[in-house]
């Protein structure tokens, strides 16, 4: 079974949660009564979910699950790719919401005896690492500090797996300043130290020890 991943697409209906290639699943979803039942359960769970969120977490627009034909094979991909895509209309979303959706989705499949067909790997290895080490807040702080210190820099975070000792992993945040001349380098390194001082002073060691920074000079 091909592991499913969550991806953002260019469709206007929002992100999609691909399921897996599985003809049994396709037959099942094409069954109208199953689809209606599935849709109703999803809708119920969405309501429960959004009602249980704290005020600050609530999306401005509630998730709207299409009532009909919410399971589509991608146009033009029928022959080559039988992956099922569920499209949810989300005008505002973030990774946390998507993961919650995936979990709800999984729960529904479990209720319907289809456990194993859903996105078992809806998180990337990086997302899993962030969740298991509870790093989301630390990352948010890191971005905040970086933006304070480096006005014009590209920032990207990735799961860093040591190329020589792959058992060691960090959530690595790379800062790439734009238009650097040699005379800027000492100043940039001072900023880099300041960033780490702020980070270490703000967060507990169990979080800071899992996050690394890299100042990348082009």
């Amino acid at each position, binding site marked *: 079974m091909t592991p499913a991943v969550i991806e953002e697409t260019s469709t206007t209906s929002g992100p999609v949660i691909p399921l897996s290639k599985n003809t049994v699943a396709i037959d099942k979803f094409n069954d109208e009564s199953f689809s209606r039942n599935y849709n109703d359960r999803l809708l119920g769970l969405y309501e429960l979910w959004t009602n249980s969120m704290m005020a600050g977490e609530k999306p401005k627009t509630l998730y709207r699950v299409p009532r009909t034909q919410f399971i589509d094979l991608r146009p033009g991909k029928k022959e080559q790719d039988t992956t099922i895509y569920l499209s949810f209309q989300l005008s505002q979303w973030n990774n946390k919401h998507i993961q919650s959706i995936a979990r709800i989705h999984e729960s529904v499949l479990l209720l319907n005896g289809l456990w194993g067909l859903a996105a078992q790997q809806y998180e990337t290895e990086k997302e899993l690492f962030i969740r298991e080490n509870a790093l989301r807040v630390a990352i948010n702080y890191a971005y905040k500090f970086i933006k304070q210190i480096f006005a014009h820099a590209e920032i990207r975070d990735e799961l*860093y797996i*040591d*190329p*020589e*000792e792959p*058992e*060691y992993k*960090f959530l*690595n945040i790379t800062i790439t300043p734009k238009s*650097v*001349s*040699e005379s800027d*380098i*000492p100043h*940039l*390194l001072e900023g*880099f*130290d300041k960033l*780490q*001082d702020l980070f*270490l*002073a703000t967060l507990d*060691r169990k979080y*800071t*020890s899992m996050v*690394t*920074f*890299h*100042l*990348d*000079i*082009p």
Partner: protein
Amino acid sequence: MIEPLGYLDFAKEILDSIPITEIKIRTAVNRAYYAVYLYAADKYSQAKGNDPSIEAIIRSHARFIKELKLEASQPLQTLGNQLNDLKQDREKADYEYRANVSKNSAQKSYFQALHIKQTVDTAFSSFIG
């Protein structure tokens, strides 16, 4: 026998050489890293009493960095972060042969190595007491 920081002087020599080539630039990054890695590892080992378990830690670059990041002392945590930053420069210089490694990026690695030496001196003077 050599002194680890001799590699740092060599990195500077390479960067100041004319003409400078990308092979030289990459070599300078590599030498700058090893200079301060070995220097820091040596000081750490001394501070911890040259215990065999510490020797095992410092033989693994990633593990040493991880241990430093878990230390209670903030200068040691900073040292872990700085070493990790330079290690990533070194990995790019050593492995990513298709990427461009500029002289500016090597200068940054060299300056970071100087920073690390300073952090080591500060961190271990307070660590040893």
